[in-house]
């Protein structure tokens, strides 16, 4: 197997032609920027979804943990149990709300 020196590699690397983007690159960038700027807030959130991805995953994981814990404690997945209200009657909840208000 042939071996070659660092100098030979450097020479080879210097021959690499400088690559270029497709024509009208700056026009395309400005066009894309204008499209971004014209997006409504929801649209720009979707465009930047990669940035939000980790938070979505974390929230989904947290929700799963909550569901699993609730199921483990109560044996079912009722909304009352998820909110920690499973052991209270409707009257008790209403009385509590009235006292707070």
């Amino acid at each position, binding site marked *: 197997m042939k071996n070659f020196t660092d100098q030979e590699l450097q020479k*080879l690397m210097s021959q690499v*032609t*400088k690559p*270029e983007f497709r024509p009208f*690159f700056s026009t395309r960038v400005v066009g894309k920027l204008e499209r971004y700027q014209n997006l409504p807030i929801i649209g720009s959130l979707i465009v930047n979804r990669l940035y939000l991805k980790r938070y979505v995953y974390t929230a989904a994981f947290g929700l799963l943990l909550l569901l699993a814990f609730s199921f483990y404690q109560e044996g079912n997945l009722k909304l009352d149990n998820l909110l920690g209200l499973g052991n209270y009657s409707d009257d008790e909840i209403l009385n509590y709300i009235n006292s707070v208000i």
Partner: protein
Amino acid sequence: MKNLSDEQIIQLIKKNDQKAFKELIDRYEKKVAATVINMLGNTDEADDVGQEVFIRFYNNIFQFKGTSSLGTYLTRIAINLSLNELKRRKIKSMRFDFWNSSNPEEIKSNEIADTNRFENKSDAKNLVQKALLKVDSKLRSVIVLRMIEGYDTHETAEILEIPQGTVLSRLSRGQEKLKTILIQLGYEGS
């Protein structure tokens, strides 16, 4: 517009002057292209990442304090976005491999066929670009900056936000890896 300095151009961009932004793109397009295309290959994704480099700069222009040159700053963005794109590709390919668990022998024979096809038509320049894409992304980023872009060790360390010693060790490992791949691809010297 052509006679303005980078600093003057940036001040105009801060006032939402899109002509100034276009001028900045024209000035640095080739530099960003060299970084992104050498990192990702000459693909549509490379063009998209190149566009994203300038849009990212525009959106965060007030964070640019001028402590490094504009070229170095844009190169840093280009390298970071290229590395993100490579990670994305890796995850995509892992998902693809998971759902399409092909026979490893089949994959290997396809790789060999691909190499043979390349050997028949390539010259040394194409061979280097092909070999570069087979080097691990961390080593590749150092090779691109040091050996193609011409940054020195200090600048490379600054762009990649790693110590200079790490730059030197990655460069050495990268060069050895590149030589091995070049020989595997059939490079026979000048």
